[in-house]
């Protein structure tokens, strides 16, 4: 319709675009954020005020206890006694060596340190996706490292031997957790495949095994491995206490791992199995090349959650008298040189912090891997 602009009969219609106005001040910036997130409705406002008051009541005393009133240096309990004394960090400082190594001989602790460095040297490159040589790296971690670590830690056969009863602290926690993880993963895959097998006996046995371990608490498993297992072995065979606990933990967590992996196997469409068969792959080839890479990728969060659970559960070994991190911290509460009202809380907060770092780190890494491997299997 030409000419409409020239002869505008509607004088009240604007001929030019009005420029955009800025949003109302209550909708943008700090004020907008506050309104949206804290004071959206009267109910929200009330809740915000209540929560803020609770935080004001809780947080300053906690900070005082942790930092401002805390005792940072001292050689004994006298430093940590008093009316308004917070955490007794001097206790942690004095016992730090024990918390890390247990009663491992001081002059041989370099062996533990070296093992730790070797582990980190293997773990860091495999955790960063862009670093090449993943196959060699995995070979190092799964074959070479365990042998070297075993020889370094026990001293067998070249170095001065160190009994496992002298191991303790974070060292034992990590040994139990890593052995549990490394053993339970392949065992879990085998059990999961067994549970989905068509062979009736294999299937039944896998189900019984899995359901049994999942139905009982870990403590009874540890009791069993420490009290009952020696009975079932020939009289002349005697087992290391730590090794018995390791067997219990590994069997226990493999059952949980199996259920997680089974979930992944079930999520793979049937066509993938049939395709593997059609390609004339053998069962194991099909599993290794087609099914497991997809299934495991799907259940990475579940696997990592099992690892985190296993890591936390390692603390239970203290009940059968193995001094892991928590065990050694707890044992030191009875040290007469350090008995004070603040000691247990300090020691436990320290241990909690260490466990938190490891577990939180694992869960963040799993979230990162989940994002990276998300190549479209969500339906």
């Amino acid at each position: 319709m030409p000419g409409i602009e020239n002869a505008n009969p509607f004088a009240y219609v604007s001929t030019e675009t009005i420029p955009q106005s800025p949003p109302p001040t209550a909708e943008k910036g700090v004020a907008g954020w506050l309104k949206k997130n804290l004071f959206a409705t009267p109910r929200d406002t009330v809740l915000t005020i209540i929560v803020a008051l609770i935080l004001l009541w809780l947080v300053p005393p906690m900070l005082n206890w942790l930092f401002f009133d805390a005792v940072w240096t001292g050689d004994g309990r006298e430093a940590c006694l008093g009316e308004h004394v917070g955490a007794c960090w001097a206790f942690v400082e004095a016992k730090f060596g024990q918390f890390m190594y247990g009663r491992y001989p001081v002059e041989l602790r370099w062996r533990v340190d070296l093992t730790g460095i070797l582990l980190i040297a293997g773990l860091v490159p495999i955790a960063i996706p862009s670093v090449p040589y993943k196959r060699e790296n995995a070979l190092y971690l799964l074959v070479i490292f365990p042998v070297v670590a075993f020889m370094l830690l026990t001293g067998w056969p070249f170095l001065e031997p160190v009994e496992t009863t002298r191991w303790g602290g974070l060292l034992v926690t990590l040994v139990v957790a890593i052995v549990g993880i490394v053993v339970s993963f392949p065992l879990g895959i085998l059990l999961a495949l067994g549970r989905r097998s068509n062979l009736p006996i294999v299937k039944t046995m896998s189900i019984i095994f899995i359901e049994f371990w999942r139905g009982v608490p870990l403590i009874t498993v540890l009791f069993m491995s420490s009290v009952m297992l020696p009975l079932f072995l020939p009289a002349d065979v005697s087992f290391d206490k730590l090794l018995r606990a390791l067997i219990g933990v590994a069997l226990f967590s493999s059952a949980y791992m199996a259920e997680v992996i089974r979930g992944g196997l079930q999520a793979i469409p049937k066509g993938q199995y049939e395709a593997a068969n059609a390609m004339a792959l053998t069962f194991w080839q099909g599993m290794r090349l087609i099914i497991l890479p997809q299934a495991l990728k799907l259940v990475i969060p579940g696997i990592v959650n099992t690892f985190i659970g296993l890591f936390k559960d390692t603390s239970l070994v203290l009940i059968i008298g193995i001094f892991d991190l928590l065990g050694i911290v707890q044992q030191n509460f009875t040290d007469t040189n350090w008995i004070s009202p603040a000691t247990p809380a300090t020691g436990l907060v320290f241990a909690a912090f260490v466990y938190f770092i490891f577990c939180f780190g694992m869960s963040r890494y799993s979230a990162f891997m989940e994002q990276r491997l998300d190549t479209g299997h969500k339906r």
Partner: protein
Amino acid sequence: MAHTDGVADGTEDSGRASLLYDPKARGLFFQAVLIIVVAYLVYSGISNAAGNLARAGIASGFGFFEERAGFEIGQTLIHYTNDSTYFRAFLVGLLNTLMVSALGILFATIIGFVVGLARLSRNYLIRKLATVYVETLRNIPLLLQLLFWYKAVLAVLPNPRETGLEQGTTVLWTLNNRGLYIPRLIPEAGASAILIAVVIAIALWVVIGMWASKRQMKTGQQFPTFLTGLGIFIVLPVLTFFLTGMPFDVEFSALQGFNMSGGTVIRPEFIALLLGLSLYTASFIAEIVRAGILAVAKGQTEAAYALGLSPNHTSRLVIIPQAMRVIIPPLTSQYLNLTKNSSLAVAIGYPDLVAVFGGTVLNQTGQAVEVITITMLVYLTISLLTSAFMNWFNARVALVER
């Protein structure tokens, strides 16, 4: 035999495949090997155990159940003295386990749902607070948390004399390092009438609920079932209480010398265990609840609003029923975990099944095989029963598909 090796080799071009490549034969062979290996392990284990036990002079069998236990237990729900049998001790432990698990499940569910909803709150402060709660408690071992409550919080409370109470003055409640003291209700004659009133009230509530849903199906009219039921539930027992002439005597606790006397005491071991179990499991339940609610598509909310449902009705009739389907299976395994985790009681000295039976009884009788087997079987039974119940419940709320 879909996944076992097929006869796909080109070399086997005619006639029957060699037995080596026959999936059926291979399957049978592997299973036979498996049976032989397992049977050998079981046999050698049993024969070793028999030999070892005979050498150590340990009796076997379950005769010890009838013997006198001879030890005290700190907290008992049923009558128990050190003259009671081992079986009685076993029952005491089992009941303690069941009680702490049931209460733990109740509290963990309540806290978990509240925190889970708080994580989805519009309010920044509440959302972040809930996140900090979940991330902290989830990543610290339960055993450590139990020890924390027990050794770092409850054990350093003042003793009864330091709490500032006056000698002999009764108090409603007091918390010190001996535990939490609350009044004790001593039932007198006629007290059972109140229990009956409670049962009747629950039955009435159920009947009203059934009648109301039937009427709603027929006429579309709604009935305030919850409020009516709650009213009956409160009014009826209270009324009975006054009609029967208040058949309860209340005993308050008071400071007597160095210790408290009177009232009921809830021991610090129990408080620590219940706190630890509830707070720890609640952090997992919160995540399950959050995931369940997020799993309900946004279109459902929009559809409910389009139909004119109020926000309240939308969450009650549309969102929650659908979220429950996602929530219930993982919730079940959390309940089972809580029950199994209650065995950590042994670390702080609460007399649960593992501490009483797997600890003291095992040490006194030395019959490790029987004691540990029974303990494991009990937990296994609880696990299987709970999961059977939850499967039934799950089937009831499951999506009915065409």
